[in-house]
């Protein structure tokens, strides 16, 4: 089966520092793939390159066989990739449903129309997406007063508007209460399974990662050090070391403890 997304030798240097170094991986159809690693491992850099917000120093990103490198985020979106943000990005001055309608107006290429009333456009469609994420009863509320977990749901609804093939989710549960994390992640998993959407996500919460990822990629200092199933990653000594520190320097202490 052809991969949905294929990343080949992706690298990014800032000055002399190699933030991401020759990373290779594929995302298969319907797969939930987690990208993890300690702070500074290059997760965000890697993600920003996939989204088109950062230009890679070298390497390619193929989406359904087409190279995305050099394209703007908005063009990548049109190809069928949706995304959510680590720090939520929603339109604070609009109502919840208008946030979704905005994405639909963009999808239907109506953003330069000056004649119709925007709040009447694609309303029922937008409501369906809100229903999907459980926000239908809050549709008319002001987005700025939404609880954080609900903002994350709203972002998900926005990201689903153009029927994406692939979703990129940057820390989908960051900043949420622990109980909410599980429900939002379960919701995401259910929706993408139903719609057969592939997901690539970064995450800090290991419960979320182990609970939902089909496969895990581990980055450290810009390099991909592991790529495997949940059990493989759990039992990988190199990954343990990356997360707990260690290395030659502390061998003596390790032996002592």
């Amino acid at each position: 089966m052809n991969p949905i997304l294929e990343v080949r030798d992706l690298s990014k240097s800032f000055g002399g520092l190699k933030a991401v170094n020759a990373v290779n991986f594929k995302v298969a159809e319907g797969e939930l793939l987690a990208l993890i690693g300690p702070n500074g491992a290059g997760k965000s850099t890697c993600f920003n390159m996939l989204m088109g917000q950062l230009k890679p120093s070298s390497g390619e990103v193929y989406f359904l066989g087409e190279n995305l490198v050099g394209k703007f985020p908005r063009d990548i979106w049109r190809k069928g990739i949706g995304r959510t943000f680590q720090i939520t990005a929603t339109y604070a001055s609009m109502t919840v449903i208008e946030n979704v309608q905005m994405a639909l107006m963009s999808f239907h290429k109506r953003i330069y129309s000056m004649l119709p009333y925007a709040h009447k456009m694609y309303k029922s469609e937008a409501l369906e997406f809100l229903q999907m994420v459980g926000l239908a009863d809050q549709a008319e509320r002001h987005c700025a007063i939404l609880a954080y977990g609900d903002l994350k749901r709203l972002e998900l609804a926005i990201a689903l508007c153009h029927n994406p093939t692939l979703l990129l989710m940057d820390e989908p549960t960051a900043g949420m209460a622990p109980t909410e994390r599980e429900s939002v992640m379960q919701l995401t998993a259910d929706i993408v399974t139903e719609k057969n959407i592939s997901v690539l996500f970064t995450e800090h919460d290991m419960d979320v990662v182990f609970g939902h990822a089909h496969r895990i990629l581990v980055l450290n200092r810009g390099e991909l050090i592991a790529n495997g199933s949940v059990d493989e990653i759990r039992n990988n000594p190199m990954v343990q070391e990356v997360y707990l520190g260690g290395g030659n320097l502390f061998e003596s202490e390790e032996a002592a403890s």
Partner: protein
Amino acid sequence: MIEVDSINSFYGKAQILNDLSFSIAAGEVVSILGRNGAGKTTTLKSIMQLVRPRTGSVKFNGTEVVGSPPYKVAKMGLGYVPEERRIFTDLTILENMEVGRQPAREGVPEWSVDLLFELFPNLSERRNNRGKALSGGEQQMLTIARTMMGNPTCLLLDEPSEGIAPVIVEQMAETIMQIKKQRLTVVLSEQNLHFARLVADRAIIIEGGQKRFDGTFAELDAQPEIQEKYLSV
């Protein structure tokens, strides 16, 4: 010396700290451990008032600091060393240290530029270089030296070992031991358990903005499931 009492801190709408409480005694070196995103940085910022806890109290030597501007907290004797090496890149090493200078304080040793250059010989050689010309490790040392110029009675160190070469991490550990000898209280946030074990007397583990463990490293070793759950993968 520091008493944190059920603080709740937010970034915008995102709640980062959740009813977090702990206390630090004078002369202690305590490490706050947790994965990234656990709320370690926010904990230190909430003590320093760079993030103002929405509820709860933070006392420093018995004085409430919640609501005071950061400069007043700094003047009380709390020294804050940020992560991400927030040095002033357009200023030289000496000038960076001048920004941090505060008058001597009772009960703690007074630091001078010369004393600090003894502690950080690398900085001494490059004292007139601008911040942006320094390596990551040197920048990290400069942030510590700059804060030490304020003669703090308590040092808040945010991830001192992050993103620097192993040999520098070793130096950093030695430096913290040196500082510890000067009877300074130190609170450091860390992801690196081995580094923390090396320098700290006590560990506080947080996850999801909540405290999950508070005790010595011996106690932590006795509970491998805690390590497993909150620190490792």
